[in-house]
């Protein structure tokens, strides 16, 4: 019996011949990634020193640290957390990146997410790196085990295969696909499994759209998501790689927990009602069109990539954001910001009335410009539970960047196909 790409990556990382689903053993990640956040990294630094005697890590090349949250720190404590992180990173000689954008994206741009590699983080959205044929898993505070020992015990997950045919029509994005998948299979449809995307529809999908699709795996119950490498991801990886890599691929006779066939031509724009991404909350945008909004947000580790910004600019070119609506656009990384600037997209958005903001995580979790009670926001963020972006009495709808741009244009939730050319 053949193996999936996930089994092969974890076999290599665990130095075993063939990882079997359900086994548990220590694996050695290529990179152990984190962003600094109060109660996480500052605690890790202290525990490593005081309880484990780690005053300097043995293999600094395998540690990656980002400062991408709380960028406009508001008090001394937050400033201190950043300082502690800088000092620790400098002392240990680990990879350290500050203010370059959201780490899950920057990790791809800087060549950490190479095909065949295995990465862990405490944040589950690192699954977005599956777009490049690498496996990223969120292990929560168990990341400390990796940071202390260099490895981590893992249950080898099963895989469900999603075979994509057709292509995304104008006005459709991979955010529509992941929300439709959750709607169809349920919020635990692939619980404890990896979502593997295959087929011509997967190969036709731009990398940024693949990242968004993989990054939201946790809301279907997935522990990660992955694409097999293809010429598109390999070409990107060769450009950014700082070391050799060996891609891995699923065998044709690999065993899957389940298989789904999805024709992308059948997709329609999806919207997630306030609360959570669970199946019952997910609907065609048309079913809620007309709902007034006051706030709109394009950004986050899932969306806010160049394809999203191009799509938003296309909708808003020569137009104005509706009166009474505030649209904030946060490119996912500085590199994407610069590219969007050079393509004239940000000027188009600014001229349309959008606020274009420095790349960070801060809008997505309500740190920057929090929502006021009673406000309604449509967002490309990753979570729409009450209170996520400010007041618990504000409503957050989630959709694609295209849907957010179309809704910002009209002032109410709008099927983007009504305004896209």
């Amino acid at each position, binding site marked *: 019996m053949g193996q999936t790409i996930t089994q092969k990556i974890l076999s290599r990382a665990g130095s075993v011949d063939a990882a079997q689903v359900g086994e*548990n053993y220590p694996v050695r990640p290529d990179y152990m990634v984190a962003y600094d956040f109060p109660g996480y990294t500052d605690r890790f630094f202290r525990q490593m020193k*005081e*309880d484990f005697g780690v005053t300097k890590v043995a293999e600094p090349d395998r540690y990656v640290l980002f400062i991408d949250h709380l960028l406009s720190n508001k008090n001394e404590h937050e400033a201190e957390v950043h300082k502690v992180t800088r000092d620790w990173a400098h002392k240990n000689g680990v990879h350290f990146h500050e203010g370059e954008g959201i780490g899950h994206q920057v990790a791809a741009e800087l060549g950490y997410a190479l095909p065949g590699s295995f990465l862990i983080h405490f944040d589950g959205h690192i699954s977005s790196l599956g777009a490049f044929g690498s496996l990223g898993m969120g292990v929560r505070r168990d990341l400390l085990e990796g940071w202390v020992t260099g490895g981590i015990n893992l249950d080898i997950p099963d895989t469900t295969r999603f075979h994509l045919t057709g292509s995304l029509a104008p006005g459709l994005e991979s955010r529509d696909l992941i929300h439709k998948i959750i709607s169809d299979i349920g919020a635990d449809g692939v619980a*404890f499994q990896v979502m593997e995307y295959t087929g011509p529809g997967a190969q036709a999908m731009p990398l940024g759209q693949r990242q968004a699709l993989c990054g939201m795996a946790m809301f279907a119950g*997935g522990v990660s998501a992955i694409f097999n490498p293809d010429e598109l991801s390999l070409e990107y990886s060769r450009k950014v790689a700082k070391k050799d890599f060996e891609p891995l691929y699923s065998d044709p006779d690999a065993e899957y927990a389940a298989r789904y066939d999805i024709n992308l031509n059948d997709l329609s724009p999806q919207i997630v009602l306030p609360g959570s991404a669970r199946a019952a909350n997910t609907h065609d945008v048309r079913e809620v069109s007309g709902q007034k909004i006051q706030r709109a947000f394009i950004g986050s580790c899932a969306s806010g990539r160049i394809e999203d910004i191009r799509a938003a600019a296309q909708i808003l070119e020569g137009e104005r954001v509706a009166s009474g609506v505030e649209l904030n656009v946060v490119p996912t990384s500085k590199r994407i910001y610069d590219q969007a600037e050079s393509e004239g997209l940000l000027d188009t958005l600014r001229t349309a009335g959008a606020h274009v903001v420095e790349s960070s995580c801060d809008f997505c979790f309500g740190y920057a410009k929090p929502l006021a009670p009673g406000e309604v926001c449509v967002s490309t963020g990753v979570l729409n*539970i009450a*209170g996520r972006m400010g007041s618990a009495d504000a409503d957050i709808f989630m959709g694609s960047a295209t849907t957010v741009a179309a809704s910002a244009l009209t002032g109410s939730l709008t099927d983007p196909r009504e305004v896209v050319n």
Partner: protein
Amino acid sequence: MTALPQVLPDVLTGRVAWIFGDDHDIDLMIGVENIKYTDPDHLHSVCMKAYEEDFTDKVREGDWLVGGRNFGYGHPHYVAMTAMRNEGIVGVIAESFAPGFWRGEVSNGMPLLTVPGVSSAVERWDELEVNWREATVKVASKGLELQGQPLNERGQEMIAAGGRYALLLAEHGTKVN
């Protein structure tokens, strides 16, 4: 220095303090506006208020929570279960768990038992006898015994040790406790 959690015996007795539905988002147990708080008094004052005003008066040390499918769905911040542990809740028995929640709370030393049928088989305040290693749940008053899926060996080691941190400390720590 981090305090070690208490080590659990294999068999535990306690009552069903609450039964949640499917896809339960744990943030709701304390209110999303409280997920950044750590002060035990504050968490006590908000715990389960959205569900039952006097829940914290009724719950006792050793009680269990029961859930439906996919318990812990969403971004499973740690604070809600910290609040529940403060109230004496010892573990959760559910039809199934969301992976992120499962990983985080097993790491915290809390037994999470996957037991099909549990959410409809038991009632609030039923007295349970739970063997967390074998994933068995007995309700003597109903003559009921439910069989769940035991944790794998590593998971059992973790719970027995009092959580991942305690296990890591035992295996790699420099402090003598």
